[in-house]
């Protein structure tokens, strides 16, 4: 089962009631899988006329209290930003998968991590955030999908799963099961027909003076809570490390290969791998920067997450960067070379 199919099956396990999507490479296995599986489960699959429509269909299903998702790749996700902003404003849960490809523009269909800014800064208009996962294996992709539906319902907001062409296409053994369940609030806001109760309204327009500011403050308070409670990251051999490599997603897998080899050469190197990209593991990185260590950020972009790493390090230690934009994939050797170079720098007393 490839990553795209695994994430689709994970959504079904998570209780996704409806999938809406529009074809785009490299995530076409998702709609194809859903077209077959959702009707088998008595659930909804619609191929929409555009990504604008797909995210609006998600909006509609979600407004009635159903679990809904869509998936796309970078150019399609740009079109979906309208609906994602409306979901955030209207406090509606949804799961959006971005199997990233090279950009800007039509770019190419090679794997990429160039949509980090778009995903972690909200992406569309207005002061909002989305929870963003950056899984680095097919198993983690599955686990993140299942968690994403719960988080969306808990915090009433869109949750994005950032994968890339490699993760979507690769196959790995995977266990498909829902491991944990959260206690979730009742959806008493859902549009189900005003039977024996007052009318429910789902809206993002707040015209009365001060009303939108109050609404934004409410959202921000929720985002603060998420930053406190929902950060996920993995650390490996950071304690004695002179160099700490930070990477997420498939880039982190390549980093792992390089770090393993560097350790074999006797270089003291470890890694920190954010699993949630927003909320970002700022505290964990800041703590690791208390000791003098050189941070190396590796991304399949010209440098996006590196800004968050620098903010987290807060000037305590240097942050180096190695990136490959436009669908370029860094090799283990490239990263290993970079680590070796930094070792020389680490030895210079400050």
């Amino acid at each position: 089962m490839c990553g795209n199919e695994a994430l689709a099956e994970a959504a079904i396990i998570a209780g996704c009631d409806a999938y809406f999507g529009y074809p785009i490479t490299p995530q076409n296995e998702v709609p194809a899988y859903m077209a077959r599986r959702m009707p088998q489960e008595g659930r909804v699959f619609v191929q929409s006329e555009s990504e604008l429509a797909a995210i609006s269909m998600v909006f509609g299903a979600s407004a009635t209290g159903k679990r809904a998702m869509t998936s796309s790749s970078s150019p399609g996700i740009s079109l979906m930003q309208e609906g994602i902003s409306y979901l955030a404003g209207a406090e509606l849960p949804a799961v959006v998968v971005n199997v990233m490809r090279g950009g800007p523009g039509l770019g190419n269909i090679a794997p990429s991590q160039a949509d980090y800014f778009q995903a972690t800064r909200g992406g569309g208009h207005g002061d909002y955030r989305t929870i963003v996962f950056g899984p680095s294996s097919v198993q983690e992709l599955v686990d993140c999908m299942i968690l994403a539906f719960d988080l969306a319902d808990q915090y009433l907001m869109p949750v994005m799963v950032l994968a890339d062409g490699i993760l979507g296409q690769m196959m790995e053994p995977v266990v498909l099961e829902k491991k944990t369940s959260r206690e979730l609030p009742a959806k008493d806001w859902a549009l189900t027909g005003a039977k024996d109760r007052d009318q429910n309204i789902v809206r993002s327009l707040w015209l009365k003076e001060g009303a939108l500011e109050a609404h934004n403050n409410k959202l921000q308070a929720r985002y603060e809570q998420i930053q406190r409670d929902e950060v996920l990251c993995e650390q490996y051999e950071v304690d004695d490390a002179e160099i700490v490599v930070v990477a997420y997603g498939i880039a982190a897998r390549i980093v792992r290969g390089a770090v393993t080899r560097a350790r074999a050469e006797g270089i003291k190197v470890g890694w920190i791998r954010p699993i949630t990209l927003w909320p970002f593991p700022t505290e964990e990185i800041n703590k690791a920067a208390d000791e003098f260590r050189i941070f190396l950020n590796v991304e399949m972009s010209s440098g996006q997450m590196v800004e968050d790493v620098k903010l987290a390090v807060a000037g305590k230690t240097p942050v180096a960067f190695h990136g490959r934009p436009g669908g370029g994939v860094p090799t283990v050797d490239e990263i290993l070379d970079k680590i070796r170079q930094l070792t020389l720098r680490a030895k210079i007393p400050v």
Partner: protein
Amino acid sequence: MKTVFKRTPTLKDCVTHYCPGCGHGIAHRLVAEVIDELGIHDRTIGIAPVGCAVLAYDYLDVDMVEVAHGRPPAVATGMKRTNPDKIIFSYQGDGDLASIGAAEILHAGHRGEQITVIFINNAVYGMTGGQMAPTTMIDQVTATTPRGRVGAEQGYPLQVSELLATLPGTIYIERCSVHDPAHIRKSKKALRHAFELQVDGAQGMSLVEMLSPCPVYWRMPPAKAMEWIENEMTKVFPLGRLKG
């Protein structure tokens, strides 16, 4: 004393934000009356557009959502597909339905979504200050056609209902008007039929277009606006059943 007319419960008891002489108030009342007469208040979900009717949920006492400009038919698709037992209607203006949402209405009709669409055609963008709409008449002066609409430059009035009637997925399309009592009664009949089709589970989309006055941006008094519908608009947008 005998009550011959009263506010129907689904229409809220409040003053609307609509301008004097606007047709939205009439259209809202008709929708509310039909919902109450069909006894579907408890299972109806309405979709408000971006446009003058964006606050429709302040006047219609059913579950409602307000959505992005042009996207009501896609939102309605998401709702109806996941809730086939609910009655879903979208209430859209000409900018919302015929311009920015042209793809959404076309494809919802094309897929034969079992929804009811209420299309208010007042030949102008009201909310944003009277700009040209796809349905703006030739020679009509608007904020963005200061010398009047010229077909060769800005296109001709778009007859969306005729276009949608060609799709196999649409089952009922009728163009009505709210410019006088007789036509208001006809409009209500059409709306009732459109909702009934959905209640009966008929396979496809139904749409009622209503020609509606916008005296402020037509730059004429309300009574004159009603005459303009009768004398001018109906020439380009002929009334009657286009399908079903």
